[in-house]
């Protein structure tokens, strides 16, 4: 790969992409309460400014033949033998992400004006949102792994701050901590990968690393590459909530709904996929790492889907769905050049429809006094019509009904897996197809429980929501009402994306050709219909039908029934938390208790023993001082005896 050309013209100002949100975050955080009145507007303006520049940069890049430009910003650590720079790489992959992040991000900023209008800390919320946008942009725009890692950590921080935004809620604080710690495990893997890379290739920049790797000019060979690939996968698992580091995503729903939409649906959790696709030369060389990626993707795909089926909390069900859809992306990314395009396309489409679904859920919560339990919903389509329509469009997109987005992108992944062939290919394809069916089931369940059926919120019953700040239960039944236009306009725009994005990207291989400089030549295209696609569609219909049988035809009970042991397991996140606790947490606690014991008894005992010995011996020794002149005279005599003896010994 030849070295990237330096940025010229408009693209020389690419640093503005980062500067706008950083400036917004700084002003809002440092300004404090003074900025409360207009803080939200500044936040939205910064996000929109980045989006506008992103569009300009996109069209500028389209006008080039070689669509890749590098802008060196500054030299971070100019040490001999360890050169670390901060620079921006603009190429098709990064510009796609920039448009997604700033576009969906700006819509969610606008939505938050309405959603957080009753919150005293709204300004701080926008500060953190801007901080997140800045860190995520650094992550996708950086031209070397070190800058990527800096952005990686930044989004982790922003996620922590935003999940725990309502600090007074103990559950929120704990969830934020859990997210950060689970992310940290992944970050360890990523930092090890970067260190290995530096040890092997002596540089962090993408270009030189991939060039050296593919030319085989190093001593490590494929072993090192596989190790780097697996460690990168570990990092991606942490950030994208894949098995085995998936436990934090469902607890992250404690944060406000716009946070769930932006971070835990559209952008942050997709950073892992970005990392894998950006590092595609590494994975292309190492089939073992690729296999690991696909396995992780397939397992998480099914696990997330099963968890989503049993949750009564609308946000947690959507979180399970997010886990599952990112599993699809990992599956696609692990299939090599054939799958990268579909993974990114699904990522973009998922960004639209999942954000739309989350914003719709937020709109429902806004109208139902922050109630999240779907068993307290029912028949809401009359009261929230706009939300219903946008939600329904997102629903159709996610389950993969043609001609909506999900159909094109998901089918692309399923077909790529099918085409891989061999045992692994067919198993992966089978997982993906079954996953599609389960997706259809739980999404239809959600639709029926929320929008159709008898209204269950007028009767007294178990109520999950309470006043956020005081914790007191609500006094009266909610009065569902449509959200204001500041919240519905973003939802409408996202719904348009849900409908159109998939087809726009996949038809005529538009996106594949666009991404080719980064991911390699795409596979030859399929027709619209193919064997695995048809099987998937059949299963989708079956899933919808089963859900109608259980939830559509029969009234939904207000209290959750006991369910089979699969339901119980799914409600407990497939025992993910229990596993973490017993395998990691308790031994960790025992270890700390052991070391505390050793420190207290061993080290402190040693020190105290020395002190006690000295104290005791000095207590004994002072009895020599009797105070009697005669005993002193005796010691004088004995001293004289010793002296004479010494003299005699020397002279005799």
């Amino acid at each position, binding site marked *: 790969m030849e070295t990237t050309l330096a940025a010229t013209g408009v693209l020389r100002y690419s640093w503005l992409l980062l500067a706008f949100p950083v400036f917004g975050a700084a002003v809002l955080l440092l300004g404090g309460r003074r900025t409360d009145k207009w803080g939200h507007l500044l936040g939205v303006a910064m996000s929109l400014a980045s989006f506008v520049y992103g569009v300009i940069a996109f069209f500028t890049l389209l006008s080039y033949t070689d669509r890749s430009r590098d802008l060196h910003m500054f030299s971070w650590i100019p040490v001999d033998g360890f050169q670390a720079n901060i620079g921006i790489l603009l190429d098709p992959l990064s510009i796609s992400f920039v448009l997604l992040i700033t576009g969906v991000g700006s819509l969610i900023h606008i939505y938050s004006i309405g959603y957080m209008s009753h919150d005293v800390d709204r300004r701080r919320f926008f500060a953190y949102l801007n901080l997140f946008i800045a860190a995520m942009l650094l992550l996708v725009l950086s031209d070397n792994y070190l800058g990527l890692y800096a952005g990686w950590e930044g989004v982790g921080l922003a996620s922590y701050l935003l999940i725990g935004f309502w600090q007074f809620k103990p559950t929120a604080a704990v969830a934020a901590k859990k997210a950060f710690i689970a992310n940290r495990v992944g970050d360890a893997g990523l930092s090890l990968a970067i260190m290995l890379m530096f040890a092997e290739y002596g540089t962090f920049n993408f270009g030189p690393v991939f060039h050296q790797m593919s030319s085989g000019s190093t001593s490590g060979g494929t072993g090192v590459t596989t190790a780097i690939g697996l460690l990168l996968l570990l990092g991606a698992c942490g950030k994208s909530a894949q098995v085995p580091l998936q436990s934090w995503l469902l607890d992250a729903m404690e944060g406000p709904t716009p946070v769930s939409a932006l971070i835990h649906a559209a952008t942050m959790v997709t950073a892992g996929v970005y990392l894998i696709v950006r590092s595609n030369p590494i994975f292309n060389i190492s089939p073992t790492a690729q296999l690991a990626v696909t396995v992780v993707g397939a397992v998480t795909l099914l696990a997330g889907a099963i968890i989503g089926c049993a949750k009564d909390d609308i946000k947690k069900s959507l979180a399970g769905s997010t886990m599952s859809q990112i599993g699809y992306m990992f599956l696609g990314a692990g299939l090599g050049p054939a799958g990268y395009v579909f993974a990114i396309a699904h990522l973009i489409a998922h960004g639209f429809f999942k954000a739309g679904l989350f914003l719709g859920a937020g709109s429902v919560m806004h109208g139902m006094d922050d109630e999240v339990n779907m068993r307290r919903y029912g028949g809401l389509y009359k009261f929230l019509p706009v939300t219903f329509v946008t939600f329904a469009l997102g629903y159709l997109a996610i389950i993969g009904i043609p001609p909506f987005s999900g159909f094109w992108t998901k089918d692309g992944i399923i077909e790529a897996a099918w085409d891989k062939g061999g045992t692994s290919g067919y198993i992966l394809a089978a997982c993906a197809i079954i996953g599609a069916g389960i997706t259809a089931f739980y999404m239809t369940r959600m639709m029926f429980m929320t929008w159709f059926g008898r209204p269950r919120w007028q009767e007294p019953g178990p109520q999950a929501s309470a006043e956020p700040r005081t914790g007191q239960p609500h006094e009266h039944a909610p009065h569902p009402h449509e959200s204001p236009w500041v919240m519905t306009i973003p939802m409408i725009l996202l719904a348009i994306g849900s409908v159109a994005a998939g087809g726009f990207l996949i038809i005529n291989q538009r996106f594949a050709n666009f991404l080719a400089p980064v991911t390699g030549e795409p596979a030859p295209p399929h027709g619209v219909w193919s064997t695995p696609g048809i099987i998937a569609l059949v299963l989708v219909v079956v899933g919808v039908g089963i859900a109608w049988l259980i939830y559509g035809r029969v009234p939904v009970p207000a209290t959750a029934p006991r369910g089979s042991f699969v339901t119980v397991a799914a409600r407990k996140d497939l025992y993910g938390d229990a596993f973490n606790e017993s395998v990691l947490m308790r031994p960790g606690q025992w270890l700390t208790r052991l070391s505390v014991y050793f420190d207290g008894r061993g080290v402190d005992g040693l020190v105290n023993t020395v002190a006690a010995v000295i104290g005791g011996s000095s207590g004994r020794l*002072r009895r*020599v001082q009797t105070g*009697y*002149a*005669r005993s002193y005279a005796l010691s004088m005599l004995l001293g004289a005896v010793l002296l004479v003896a010494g003299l005699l010994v020397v002279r005799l």
Partner: protein
Amino acid sequence: MSPAHYIFLSVVLFAIGGVGVLVRRNAIVIFMCVELMLNACNLAFVAFARMHGNLDGQVVAFFVMVVAAAEVVVGLAILMAIYRARKSASVDDANLLKY
């Protein structure tokens, strides 16, 4: 008798005087034991004078006697002053440096 015998006798008397200082508690008796030690030294001096064949040892012994006399005078005066103050002549009374 050769001077060596006198010197051995002097050593024995000196050692006895030294032990006496350590063992007795009455201040006057301790003083007397010190006098015994001084006398033993005098004997040694005289024996050495005889050994060397000049009178220097005897002169030194003479001076020792004079100084011992002066010392006894002052010491006993001190003893009397202490006795008047605390009505006891035991040296074990001064044990304020006890632990």
